[in-house]
């Protein structure tokens, strides 16, 4: 584990600033915040309190800390607090990814940034206000730790403990720790038994949560049977832009194997499981790019340094003195150290002209400036929720109490915006599988028998999209349209 580079911190802050114009709008943030708010007052919801279809039924508590963190952020500064949390998480993620790449290729910031670009570009689609983002930060940190020595491996256990409270993606973290232990046991056969307690503690760390063994339910469900109808849970599609980025990342990994230096067993132990997980669902694709960035950084040629080297060589050849020729030879023989390395990028081998204390002061000043700019960007950003994709204008037409059938994507929003009207279904999904989800799909799709299901369930109102089959069919069967706009239609029986 090494010191985080100033360069990475600055770039991280820059990306944190860049994300602040994006307002809070994710459909799941609302139920995460609502759940966390209950936890914040000491009432961790173990049963459903938001819907009328599964009211009182057990719900998962696997992301309790993630929910709590988001709720706390909102409690402190309303939705601007949530935005600030996202900006900080993005800054941390980018910092860790670039710093890990820099650690893999000391003194070559241009290569490190290039190697981190696929991770930054792909993870961009997960820079949303959800615990998933915190899980990505944990994942990036774990990759950093596992590339270190014994100390990194040991630090990975407390990280895994925290991660298990934050988000279900911890399961991949555990798999990587176990795989790394196995790889190291193969590499260090004489001392292989010392990895057994580390692996055991890693497993134990995931079970010390309010959910106990049930913490695996969400992870297992998402991994083994991802709900494909949710777009982010669909398989990676290379005909889309994010899918294309993933395809390029995978292609880069394969192409990088052409380089002369082979991957270490530890690198393979990380990259192969992550590659498989990345193939399972679109939301997992950033993981491969994050895991591969240090591999790219350590293998890719430094095109910039070569260009500079050849440029220097050409320049010096124009000089005719013997001394100048000698200088040219030195430049050609050893790649020129980039100026940033001299300014404090870890591993930079250039001569240190300044004293350590002066360097530390300079770094602190730069980091402080970055933090100030990030804070200013958060302060200046629009701290309101972007409701343009939600049926805000239709809320007044909703009846209070149970009996509303709502669009799946709007469930979280309704939990936030219409607390008097419990939802039929929302983005928590798993508590609704299979019975409620099946009935929801049959009704919204106007499948044969939808009226019987509506009667059996006691549906007395609907809020759906105008293009949903039920929005077309229900009025034909006597349901009354009480509100309609291009976003939503409200129907009552």
């Amino acid at each position, binding site marked *: 584990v090494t010191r985080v580079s100033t360069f990475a911190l600055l770039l991280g802050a820059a990306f944190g600033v860049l994300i602040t114009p994006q307002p809070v709008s994710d459909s799941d943030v609302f139920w995460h915040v609502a759940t966390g708010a209950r936890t914040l007052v000491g009432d961790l919801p173990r049963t459903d309190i938001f819907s009328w279809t599964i009211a009182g039924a057990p719900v998962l508590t696997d992301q309790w800390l993630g929910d709590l963190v988001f709720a706390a952020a909102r409690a402190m500064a309303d939705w601007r607090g949530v935005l600030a949390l996202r900006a900080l998480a993005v800054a941390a993620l980018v910092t860790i990814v670039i710093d890990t790449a820099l650690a893999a290729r000391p003194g070559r910031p241009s290569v490190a940034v290039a190697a981190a670009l696929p991770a930054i570009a792909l993870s961009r689609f997960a820079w949303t206000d959800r615990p998933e983002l915190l899980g990505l930060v944990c994942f990036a940190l774990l990759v950093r730790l596992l590339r270190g020595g014994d100390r990194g491996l040991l630090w990975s256990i407390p990280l895994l403990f925290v991660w298990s409270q934050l988000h279900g993606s911890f399961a991949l973290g555990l798999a990587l720790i176990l795989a790394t232990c196995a790889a190291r046991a193969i590499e260090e056969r004489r001392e292989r038994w010392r990895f057994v307690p580390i692996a055991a503690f890693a497993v134990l760390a995931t079970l010390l949560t309010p959910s106990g063994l049930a913490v695996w339910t969400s992870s297992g469900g998402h991994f083994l049977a991802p709900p494909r109808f949710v777009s982010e849970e669909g398989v990676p599609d290379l005909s889309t832009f994010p899918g294309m980025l993933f395809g390029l990342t995978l292609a880069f990994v394969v192409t990088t194997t052409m380089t002369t230096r082979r991957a270490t067993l530890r690198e393979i132990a990380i990259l192969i499981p992550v590659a498989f997980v990345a193939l399972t669902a679109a939301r997992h694709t950033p993981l491969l790019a994050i895991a591969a960035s240090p591999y790219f950084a350590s293998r890719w040629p430094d095109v910039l340094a070569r260009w500079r080297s050849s440029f220097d060589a050409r320049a010096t050849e124009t000089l005719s003195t013997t001394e100048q020729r000698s200088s040219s030879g030195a430049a050609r023989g050893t790649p020129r150290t980039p100026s940033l390395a001299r300014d404090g990028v870890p591993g930079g081998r250039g001569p240190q002209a300044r004293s350590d204390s002066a360097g530390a002061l300079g770094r602190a000043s730069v980091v402080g400036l970055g933090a100030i700019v990030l804070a200013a960007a958060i302060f200046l950003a629009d701290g309101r929720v972007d409701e343009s994709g939600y049926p805000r204008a239709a809320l007044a037409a909703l009846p209070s109490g149970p009996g509303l059938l709502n669009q799946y994507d709007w469930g979280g929003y309704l939990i936030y915006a219409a607390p008097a009207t419990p939802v039929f279904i929302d983005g928590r999904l798993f508590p609704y599988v299979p019975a409620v989800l099946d009935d929801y799909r049959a009704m919204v799709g106007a499948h*044969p028998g939808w009226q019987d299901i509506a009667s059996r369930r006691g549906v007395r109102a609907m809020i759906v999209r105008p*293009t949903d089959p039920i929005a077309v069919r229900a009025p034909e069967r006597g349901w009354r349209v009480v509100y309609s706009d291009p976003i939503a239609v409200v129907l009552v029986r």
Partner: protein
Amino acid sequence: VPGAALSARLSLLIALASFAVAIARAPADPDMFWHLASGKWMVEHREILRADVFSSTVSGQPYSVGEWLGEIVLYSAYALGGWAGLVALRGILVAVGAFFLTRLALRGARPQVALPLVAAALILSTIVWTDRPQLFTLALFPLVLDLLYSARDGATRRLVLIPPLLLVWTDLHGGYALGLAVVGVFALEAVLRRRAARAFVTTAVLGFAVTLLDPGSLGIGGAIAHAAAPPRFIVEESPPDVLRPAGFLFALFVLGTLTAGLSGGMSLLEVLLLVPLLWLALLAQRDMPYFAFAAVPYLATRLGPVMARVRLGVPRSPFGRASTPVGHALAPAAALALAVVIVMGLASLPTAADVSAYPAGATPLLGGGGTLLNEYDWGGYLIWTTPGRPVFVDGRLFPYLPAVFADWSTLVNLGPGWRDLLERYGVTTVLLRPDRALAGALREDGWRVAGSDTRWVLLSRP
């Protein structure tokens, strides 16, 4: 590494085993029927089918899916031997593919490493063992790859065979673009390596030229466009789902290739060959087998060193050394068992198509006029079994894009304006799955149920 004779024997053995497995299934593919109908029309009219004659919605409109020769060959097999003839053709084409794939795998690896990989790739390829022109690509892709590897190893004269093969392939199936791309990759590598560059480049140029000769084929632009933007609502055109059996097997090939590459490196040719094929496979699952086929020779040569690195060791041959008594006894026994299986398979070749997925009970009820609105997947079956009743839509897809297919989707899913569309197309009969929203709505609206079972419902306008 086995010698040429052992390699040939093993390849033949795998080919025969593949043949035995391939002929066990009855024909059932939904697209097979319209391919057969197209082939039949061309044989009967002695001309290439260039305009729609099967539908009510795009009747008379020009279109081309290429593959005219493939359709004629399929229909000829059917005309000669009925459904059994079609099954036999499938078996032969699969066997050809398996033979050359095994040859490829044994080029640089021991059988105990190569053959399990071949078996896995062939199992993965069963997703395209359907009675359609794509079977020709399944057979020709390993053949061309084998020729190219042989030429790269010095037998450049074999490149002479590639342009004629591409000429035929172009008219058999749109997958010829894949063959052309592979030839291009070898030519590029030859140029970069400066070895036999002239022979490979000439082959690539000639190969490209011959694919332009026939106007009845799917143009190279069309083939590339189809590969680049596959229609997602068709299952086989969707991206691979690695949590399903075939996708999982594909993922094993991907991860195996990655592991081998990370552990042992890759050559320029391997990267140039495998990266585009991986991309293609990730675009549409129907192309997964071609990545696996190309990965087999690479994995076969690299798996041994990888296993040694993690200290697993290379497995021993289950047959032992050929010279041992066990080897002598097992090899003929295996050959005899295979011969018995093949003879039994040939004796019980399926003589009828498997129509369990189709509305067979509805076809006698489809007389009368007016427009029929049918399930997309059943269009081909209806073309074949009820030629007097034109379909609304079918698996040929291209002629229906974008307007007719969008209208069909609006109709069956009760999209806004579905009633207007029903009138505009003059739909009088509807044959759909019972769980379709339209089926329920029309029943509620008083359309007459002319027939139904658990898989289909036939509705007539009152």
